[in-house]
């Protein structure tokens, strides 16, 4: 699409596709949408990626609305198609919870279901042709639009940090503040190795949200990047690469959503486990 005028425009094309639609305060004090990458950088923390938030909220809301519609008219008799779809998903999530989470919690099921379906839907946006929605948006005067929320590190880290907060909350709730501190202090090497223990366990603890969020971000960002690169090819040759990659990407989409859910369950299961020392 943008390959007519050489490497410079290719670079611009890629950069354009990797830039979020960001709303924030300009350097001159006015509020508005950033028109370039530098403007975004200058906006700093107090800005918001409208596209990421918009698409993720819409996708989440679509799932919630669909499942709520099913849940309101749920029947114990023969389920309809939509109920079947939701039930299969719920059962899939529930089986994973049953096999990995042996504690009693009302929160883990909804949490895992929300994570799985939401991440799955956000990842699935990757299968929409890379230029389709951004080009339409540009016609409507929107300068940038990234349609895959999970290629935005804010989105994936937001999820990961939420999970991390829950891990901390339930660790303290189940073990008490002292118990949690003891777990961090006395674990691999006993009481004598306290400083080393503390360093090791803190790294382990902090690595959880980082790996959780960055894994999803990295996989989807790379996948999107490859779609963008394929889109630089002449239009008659794109299908030869984009179709196999899209088919392979279906696996990644599902797998990343699944991994995110499984790791959430595993981390929370560890948070719930009260170990004897």
């Amino acid at each position: 699409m943008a390959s007519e005028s050489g490497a410079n425009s290719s670079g611009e094309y890629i950069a354009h596709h990797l830039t979020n639609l960001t709303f924030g305060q300009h350097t001159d004090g006015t509020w508005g949408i950033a028109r370039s990458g530098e403007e975004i950088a200058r906006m700093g923390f107090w800005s918001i990626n409208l596209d990421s938030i918009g698409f993720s909220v819409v996708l989440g809301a679509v799932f919630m609305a669909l499942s709520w519609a099913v849940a309101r008219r749920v029947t114990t008799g023969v389920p309809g198609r939509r109920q079947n779809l939701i039930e299969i998903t719920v059962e899939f999530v529930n089986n994973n919870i049953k096999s990995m989470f042996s504690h009693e919690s009302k929160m883990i099921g909804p949490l895992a279901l929300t994570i799985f379906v939401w991440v799955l839907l956000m990842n699935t946006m990757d299968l929409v042709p890379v230029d389709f929605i951004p080009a339409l948006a540009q016609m409507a005067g929107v300068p940038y639009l990234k349609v895959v929320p999970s290629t935005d590190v804010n989105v994936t880290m937001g999820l990961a940090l939420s999970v991390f907060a829950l891990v901390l909350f339930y660790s303290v709730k189940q073990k008490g503040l002292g118990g949690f501190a003891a777990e961090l202090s006395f674990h691999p090497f006993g009481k004598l190795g306290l400083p080393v223990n503390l360093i090791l366990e803190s790294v382990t603890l902090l690595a959880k949200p980082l790996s959780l969020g960055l894994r999803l971000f990295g996989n989807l960002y790379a996948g999107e990047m490859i779609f963008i690169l394929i889109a630089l090819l002449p239009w008659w040759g794109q299908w030869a690469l984009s179709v196999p990659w899209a088919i392979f990407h279906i696996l990644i989409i599902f797998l990343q959503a699944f991994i995110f859910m499984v790791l959430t369950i595993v981390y929370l299961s560890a948070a719930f486990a009260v170990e004897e020392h």
Partner: protein
Amino acid sequence: MNINLTIIGQVISFAIFVWFCAKYVWPPITNAMEEREKKIADGLAAADRAVRDLELAQDKATDQLRQAKQEAAGIIELARKQAGVVIEEAKQKAREEGERLLVAAEAEIEREFNRAKEELRGKVAQLAIAGAEQILQRSVGEAANSELVDSLAARL
């Protein structure tokens, strides 16, 4: 790649979605699924029970049939025996009746014979008197002679 407010927006929307899911989506669906599971399990158990009940009923039916046959055979046997007894009794009765009739007939015959004898005796006496009258050609007082003749007749 800039970390900005989006991360907080994401945390908030995540919290809202999880809350919504925990309140309106997860409980009714899992409850319905559990209930259906229970229903299916109950149905299967009921089917098993029905099969067992059927077997039991069949066993019972064959049992009763056999018993009925046995009873019927017993009744037939008894009836046959009773019939034999009845026939035997009838024969016995007939025999007795025959004997009684025979005895009665014999007694009748004897009675007839005695009566005939008496009659004959009377007639013989008269005849003897008449014969004696004619032989003697003389009138003997009937009263005196009849005594003689009666003793004669009694000796007959």
